[in-house]
């Protein structure tokens, strides 16, 4: 990975005490993935603000987006320190090309209607609570503290997703149809959240962070409970999408990142 030529001059932060540059490339990549998930989903939710079904919902979605951007900042900062490049959160968010982002494809899916957004939130929040809870038990005290805090915040987002899934599922005929369509639309993208690759396997083997793969069963049990309460069934898609973790994204991803980075790229060397 490289910093693009028009990225601002990087000021290397002081390494944390007892930390060697590039000491933990795998952990850095893992945290970057979680951070990209939060950043990209937060960016998608920002697109809702001023367009939500009610003003209360503008407020709710912006609250969630704000938490997600907060998670992204903590995770990207940490990843930049651990990967030995000393990149800041903004270097990573604004200085990488599309192919260098490693978020799961689920998080970049276009918002669609409110039901599709709720379906995406349902899948993500149930996953993120589990994932951050495992982080809360890791040996690194800073990361553990972050994981505990983030798990709590996402647990509130999960309540929001659960409530809307049930409300729409049991609301009107139209809302039930839309909720079903929303679930059908996002479900093929959920398997990727629990994928194992070399990075994850090495981290699990060294006892740094457990693999997300075993979380899938708990996740499925929980989302099934909610979807069932909504009077709907969990889709069983015939295919699963993958590629986000290795930088292979959907076509809709390019405009999302272009928009994110546009101002910063127009003003090379700017300070903000």
């Amino acid at each position, binding site marked *: 990975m490289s910093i693009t030529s028009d990225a601002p001059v990087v000021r290397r932060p002081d390494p944390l005490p007892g930390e060697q540059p590039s000491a933990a490339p795998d952990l850095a990549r893992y945290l970057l993935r979680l951070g990209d998930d939060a950043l990209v989903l937060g960016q998608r939710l920002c697109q809702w603000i001023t367009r939500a079904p009610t003003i209360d919902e503008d*407020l709710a979605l912006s609250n969630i987006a704000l938490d997600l951007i907060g998670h*992204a900042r903590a995770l990207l900062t940490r990843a930049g320190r651990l990967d030995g490049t000393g990149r800041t959160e903004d270097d990573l968010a604004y200085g990488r090309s599309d192919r260098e982002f490693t978020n799961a494809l689920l998080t970049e899916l276009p918002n669609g209607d409110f039901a599709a957004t709720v379906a995406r939130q349902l899948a993500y929040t149930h996953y993120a609570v589990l994932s951050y809870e495992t982080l809360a038990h890791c040996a690194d005290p800073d990361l553990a503290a972050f994981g505990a805090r983030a798990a709590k915040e996402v647990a509130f987002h999960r309540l929001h997703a659960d409530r809307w899934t049930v409300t729409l599922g*049991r609301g009107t005929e*139209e*809302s039930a149809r839309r909720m079903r369509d929303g679930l059908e639309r996002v479900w093929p993208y959920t398997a990727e959240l629990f994928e194992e690759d070399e990075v994850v396997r090495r981290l699990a083997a060294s006892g740094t962070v457990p693999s997300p793969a075993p979380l899938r069963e708990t996740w499925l049990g929980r989302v099934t409970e909610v979807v069932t309460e909504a009077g709907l069934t969990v889709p069983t898609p015939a295919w699963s999408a993958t590629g986000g973790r290795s930088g292979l994204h959907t076509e809709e991803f390019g405009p999302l990142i272009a928009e994110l980075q546009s101002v910063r790229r127009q003003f090379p060397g700017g300070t903000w």
Partner: protein
Amino acid sequence: MPGRCPVTAPTTAPAVDEGDLLAHFDALVAAGETIEPRDWMPDGYRRMLVRQIAQHAHSEIIGMQPEGAWLTRAPSLHRKSVLIAKVQDEAGHGLYLYSAAETLGVDRAALLDALHRGQQRASATFNHPALTWADTGAIAWLTDGAAVINQAPLCRTSYGPYARAMRRVCQEEAFHVRQGYDLMRALCEGTPEQKAMAQDAVNRWWLPAVALMFGPPDTEAGGADARTAALGAAVSRRAMAWGIKRHTNDELRQRFVDSCVPQAERLGLTLPDPAIRWNEERGHYDFTPIDWDTYREALGDDTHWARQRIAHRRAAHEDGAWVREAAAAYAARTDGTGGEDE
């Protein structure tokens, strides 16, 4: 179906002793006491409050749009977080105010409908486009700065629920102005291109802020022609007699100019008004009077952007109709308790 809210809905006073009621009302206002929702109040007072609170609420909601458009493009994650928090506060302020308006016996859905149908308006300040990132800073520094000066006296306005809502709003607005100034300062300390962007934004947002955020001129000293001054002054006098307003538009406008000029100097930005200069005798900065023509120019009435703001708001509302219907249907089925009622 919920009935009328007994905590807040106004009562209809018996007509017999209206004189006594009015005397009691006037005495409360004169003593600086607050009027509370179930107190008797003159119809004109209620109407003026509904109009003012609704216009303020609508302005918060419409005001989310110019800045909201930059949420996805904020040039650092810190600035993005700050902007989300600010736009969110605006939604919150709109809701505080709709809640206050409802204590006067109007329904917030009806107020929103009136906004969507063009029967009630938001401040024309936001009929101007936010063309660059620096506009988000200029809006916060100038228009929120104007709002703070305008709204601080409303924390002591005579109607209790409005005053209480405004105390929350004012506490939060102070953050908006500071962050706007901070954003502009970062641009002014950045590259020449960044500073030019900041100056351009100030050039475009000064007039909307200084003219529109304070309303039309309402004193002769404000530079208005005699007719406008008389009209504006009559409205302001009424509002001040009722303790809804505490100062004239022009008095607050002067206060705003006096606070902005030194801030602009510190930033190294020029306010786009060649008449701005310190007047030793008055102890205030002189500036180009907001005459009726200037005011009309700033209005940007029935322009592309004026229409666009309402169209955007209406589209969100209409696209969300099925979601609101679903929520109502679900609540009806579960009797609002979360438990199934069938």
